[in-house]
């Protein structure tokens, strides 16, 4: 047992002293949580690029759009088209000099809208229509009053007073769909944190499989086995070491996102349990990878690639709840999908141990198979190292 603990300690120290880990283990996951939260969790409802001469029309339209929580960027005509073409704005609006002059004179005018190919583009186009309608309505109100005999200046003043007296008609949207319920009450960074937790626990473990190969190549394994340490103890030490590395990454992400982004993990001991069991699956996968391959650079490539692909397929990059049905079934081939389900249950539905038992069972099954196969392969590769 002491030998296994010593091997674990050495591997963990080696992991912590590796300078590449400063970025990829400590900084990168948090940057991604921040990035995903900022891109998908923000309160903005679309982005519009507006081009046209400065003046009342452009100012009023921008103000109307910003009132509706739309992000607005002012650019020239080519810049606007480029922003839309490159997906940086959902919709572009082109205000011509004639339109701007017509607006000042209270004449009819046309606003050109360029719709992009983003998912949100059609909705943003409708937002522009609503904003333009709002401008027309403002001019309509004034014209109606002037037409009824009011003095233009007095009419404008009366409209300002009236706008404060009248409460606008509003809509109240409730979403009863399962997906909306699933994500209701979820903080801006909560989904990003849970998905990055799974992605990085697996990635860090698998990328760490290179040290297994390096140990064999540099003769560390041979020297370890020459000391009074049995092959069983050496293999056991490696299993615990991989688990410790994965769990360390997991605990770090959970603690840092709680402190920095106020991410709620639900019942903490249960969330940690899910993470540790998942780390055990990752440890098994890392053992298999580190034993099957003899080239550490190739193992690094396969490790990173496999983690990204399994992560994307298992819902660690895009919510599995939004997958088409068939793909959702396929996704459950990955341990990530089961762990994501268990975390969702704990994080979003106040789930208890009983609620996540099926997922934990499947994950333990994965872990048992991978660890056993990994241990067997590692033992064989140790013999090869001798």
């Amino acid at each position, binding site marked *: 047992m002491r030998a296994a603990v010593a091997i674990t300690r050495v591997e963990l120290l080696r992991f912590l002293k590796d300078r590449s880990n400063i970025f990829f283990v400590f900084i990168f996951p948090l940057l991604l949580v921040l990035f995903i939260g900022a891109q998908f969790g923000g309160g903005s409802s679309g982005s519009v690029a507006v081009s046209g001469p400065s003046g009342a029309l452009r100012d009023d339209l921008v103000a109307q759009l910003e009132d509706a929580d739309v992000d607005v960027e002012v650019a020239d005509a080519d810049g606007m088209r480029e922003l839309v073409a490159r997906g940086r704005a959902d919709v572009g609006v082109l205000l011509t000099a004639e339109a701007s002059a017509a607006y000042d004179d209270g004449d009819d005018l046309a606003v050109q809208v360029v719709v992009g190919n983003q998912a949100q583009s059609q909705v943003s186009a409708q937002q522009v229509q*609503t904003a333009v309608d709002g401008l027309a309505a403002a001019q309509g109100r004034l014209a109606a009053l002037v037409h009824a005999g009011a003095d233009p200046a007095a009419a404008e003043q009366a409209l300002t007073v009236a706008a404060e007296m009248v409460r606008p008609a509003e809509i109240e949207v409730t979403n009863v769909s399962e997906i909306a319920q699933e994500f209701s009450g979820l903080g801006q960074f909560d989904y990003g944190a849970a998905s990055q937790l799974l992605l990085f626990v697996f990635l860090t473990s698998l990328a760490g499989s290179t040290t297994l190969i390096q140990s064999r190549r540099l003769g560390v394994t041979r020297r370890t086995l020459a000391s009074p340490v049995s092959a069983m103890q050496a293999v056991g030490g490696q299993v615990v070491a991989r688990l410790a590395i994965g769990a360390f990454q997991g605990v770090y992400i959970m603690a840092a996102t709680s402190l920095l982004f106020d991410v709620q993990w639900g019942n903490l001991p249960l969330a940690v349990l899910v993470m540790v069991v998942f780390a055990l699956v990752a440890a098994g996968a890392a053992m298999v990878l580190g034993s099957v391959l003899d080239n550490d650079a190739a193992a690094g490539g396969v490790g990173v690639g496999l983690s990204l692909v399994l992560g994307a397929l298992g819902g660690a990059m895009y919510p599995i709840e939004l997958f088409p049905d068939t793909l959702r079934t396929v996704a459950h081939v990955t341990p990530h999908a089961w762990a994501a389900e268990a975390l969702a249950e704990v994080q979003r539905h106040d789930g208890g141990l009983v609620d996540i038992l099926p997922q934990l069972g499947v994950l333990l099954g994965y872990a048992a198979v991978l660890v056993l196969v990994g241990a067997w392969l590692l033992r064989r590769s140790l013999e090869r190292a001798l």
Partner: protein
Amino acid sequence: MRHIWIMTASDLRQRVRDKSVIIFALVVPLALMFVFDLTFGGAGDIELDPVDVAVSAPADDQLAAGLLDGTFAVDAVEVTRVDAADADEVRSLVDSGEVALGVIVPDGFGETLTSGAGPVVQVVEGEASNLSSSVVITVLEAVLDRLTSATVAATAGAVAGVPHEELAAVAEAAATAGPRLAVTEGEASTEQLSFSGSLVAGQAGLFLLFTVGFGVLGLLAEREQGTLARLQSMPMRPGLIVAAKGLVAYILGVVATAVLLTVGGMFFDVGFGALLPIAVLVLCVVASAVSLVFVIARLARTAEQAQISQSILGMVLGMSAGAFFPITAGGFLGTLIDLNPIAAFMHGLGITTGGGGVGDIGQPVAIMLGFAVLAAAASRLVPDRGAAS
């Protein structure tokens, strides 16, 4: 010249035998393209499906009827109206998934509106809710704004001293008296990558730095293994060794990017346009990536350090260029992202997709070549920390 070719050929043979370059440069990006297309492919689908909307409104309320008529006149989506007896029926229709959206207009809607008390219309989104539902909700909001506007006009009329009997006419005229502000479809830029197109271009760009790294960073590996000293003792100029590494990186980069664009384009049925401008873009982006990796090779003390810096730069450049999803950034940040060679490469592919030729890709080519020249100059100026240590 013969020396360069011998070293280049030997290195290329080694890289191909060492499968890591094939894994990183081809297998991983292709696998990611597939999985991303499978998982978020649906998110890029912007076809607006027809939508069924259940409504309940108080009978004999003209304004409520006007609100619904105005909403269902939307032409952006095909909407089917399902009239329900009351609010409960609307909710049960939404719950059962028979309709995507429910609209419940409260009793006394017209009176509450005209009195300025601000009625609240309930909207219920269900399982079948989609983008079209969002469009319908936005239209409903617009019609409500119009009705509120009429009330504001009438109230302002009263404030301004317009006779009471004329207020209804003022409210009605508010919608029509002003100038017409029409929205027309503007001319779109054709320089637009489709969802799958940006996925293929993005992954090709993201992994480029890793691929060329296998060539250039061989310098550091050779130094650590002691073979660099042996090469330097050969009867040839030392600069040839560096040139050979650069050539290996360049060949690997061009081949990998060409394969990714071709295979990705075939699988996802994406055409990037004419061959010549695409080739120019690939040659330029690989040049900027190779120059950047030379800077890393000078600054890093060990091969390990170099690999770390290269991975960090590769990820940051790739993601900020929009390799996973477009980054909505304007102002200074937007300009900064524009100077990123991977972003310029994707922009260039957008232009060629729209039929642009060599003459149209001047800007992205200038950015990539400018980056390459600056990075190459920097790689000559910064101290060689690996040799110094």
